[in-house]
C-alpha cells in the first residue's frame, strides 16, 4: 500500500468551499422541500380531485425514479423550455423537488396523527382558526414526524453529492477536481467520505439537541 495524504493539505480551501456549497444545497433543499411538503400535505385532502391527483402523481413520480435522473432531466431539459439554469441552481431545484415529494408523505402522516377530537377541543376553547392550526395541529404533528424529518434531511445532505454529476461545485465535485490535480484518487475519496461522515454525525447531534429543547412538554400515553 502506498498512500499519501500530504498532497491534499494544499487543497484545504477547495474542500472548505465544497463543504459550504454542500451545506448550502442541503439548506435550500430542506427549506424549499419542507414548504412544498407542507403545501402538498394540506392540499392532498383538497375537495378538487384534480388537485389531489396532481399531488399524488408528483409524489409517486419523484419517489419511484432515481434522483440522479431527476437532476439530469432538470439540468439538461429545462434549457429546451428556454430556462437555462446554472448547475448549482438546477441542482437546488431538483433536490428541493425530491425533498418535497418525501416531505409531503411525512407531513401527511403527521397531520393524520392528530385526532379530530383534538382539533374540536381546540375550537371549543375558542381558539381562532390560525391558533388551532398552529398550536393544536402543527406543533404536535411536528413532534410526531420530527425523527423521520431529521433522517430525511440527513438523506438530502448525502444525496446532494449527486449534484456533482451536473458539476455543481459541492464537496463531491471538489473531490473530482482535487483528484484530477493530484491523481490520489483513493485518498481523496477516503477524506471526502470522512468529511461527510463528520457532517452527518454533527447534524445528528444537533437534531437530538433541538428535539430535547423544542419538544419537551410532557406527553400522556
Amino acid at each position, binding site marked *: 500500500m502506498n498512500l499519501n495524504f500530504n498532497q491534499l493539505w494544499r487543497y484545504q480551501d477547495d474542500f472548505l468551499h465544497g463543504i459550504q456549497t454542500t451545506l448550502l444545497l442541503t439548506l435550500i433543499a430542506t427549506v424549499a422541500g419542507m414548504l412544498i411538503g407542507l403545501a402538498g400535505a394540506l392540499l392532498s385532502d383538497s375537495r378538487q380531485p384534480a388537485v389531489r391527483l396532481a399531488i399524488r402523481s408528483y409524489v409517486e413520480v419523484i419517489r419511484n425514479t*432515481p434522483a440522479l435522473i431527476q437532476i*439530469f432531466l432538470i439540468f*439538461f431539459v429545462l434549457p429546451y423550455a428556454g430556462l437555462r439554469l446554472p448547475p448549482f441552481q438546477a441542482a437546488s431545484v431538483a433536490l428541493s423537488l425530491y425533498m418535497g415529494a418525501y416531505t409531503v408523505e411525512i407531513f401527511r402522516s403527521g397531520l393524520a396523527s392528530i385526532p379530530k377530537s383534538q382539533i374540536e377541543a381546540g375550537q371549543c376553547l375558542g381558539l381562532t382558526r390560525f391558533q388551532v392550526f398552529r398550536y393544536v395541529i402543527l406543533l404536535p404533528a411536528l413532534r410526531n414526524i420530527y425523527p423521520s424529518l431529521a433522517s430525511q434531511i440527513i438523506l438530502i445532505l448525502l444525496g446532494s453529492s449527486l449534484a456533482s454529476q451536473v458539476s455543481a461545485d459541492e464537496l*463531491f465535485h471538489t*473531490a473530482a477536481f482535487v483528484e484530477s490535480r493530484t491523481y490520489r*484518487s*483513493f485518498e481523496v475519496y477516503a477524506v471526502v467520505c470522512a468529511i*461527510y*461522515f463528520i457532517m452527518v454525525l454533527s447534524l445528528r447531534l444537533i437534531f437530538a439537541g433541538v428535539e430535547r429543547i423544542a419538544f419537551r412538554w410532557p406527553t400522556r400515553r
Partner: protein
Amino acid sequence: MRGFTFSDFLTMLWAVQWTATLVLIALALGGPLGLAMAMMRSSRNVVLNVIALVILQIVQGVPLLGMLMFFYFGMPVFLGIQVPALVSVSVAFTIFTAAFLGEIWRGGIQAVHVNQSEAAACLGLTRWQGFRHVIAPQAFKIALPSTVNFLVQLIKNTSLASIVGLVELARAGQLASAATFAPLTAYACVAAIYFAICFPLTQWSRSLEKKLHVVR
C-alpha cells in the same frame, strides 16, 4: 447526428438486465449479511452489538456515491490487483444493502413482543429454534413492507453505478442522450422504465403495510 429511435429505447431495456444483475447481487450477498447484522444488533453480546452499530453508522453517514468511489479506487489499494468495475460496485452495494436490511430486520425482530421468546423458552425450544420458528416468522411479516420499500431504494440507487462506467439503465440513458442530442426523450424514457419497475413495488409495499395494520 441522428434522431432518437425505437432502437435506442430497446437498448435501454436491454441495459435493465445490468440494473437487475446489480440488484440481485446486492440482495444475494447483502441479504445474509444483513441477517447477520440484525442478529448482532439484537444479541446480548456488547462487542458484536457495537461492531454492527459502527458499521451501520458509517454506511448511513457516507453518501453511496462516496462508498462506490471508495471501493472503486480502494480495491486495488487493498488487494494490490486491478478488479473489474462490477466487482467493486458489487462490494459497495452489498455493504449498503447489508447495513440497511440489517437495521430494518432488527426493527422487525425487536417489534416481536419479548413474551414470545419467553414462551418459546418455556416450551423447551433452544434459542436458535425459538428464533427460527417463533420470532423470525413474525418479524418477517412486520419487516416485509419496509424491506420491499428498501428494494425500491436499491433499484433506484443502482443508477449511481453509471458513474463508474457500468452500462446499466441510467448509463444507457446518458449514452443515448449524448448520441442523439435528445436528452428530454432519453431521460424521460429512463425515468419511465424506472417508474414502471418501482411503482408496482411501492404499491405492493403499501398494501402489505395496510394488511399489517389490520392484523395488529
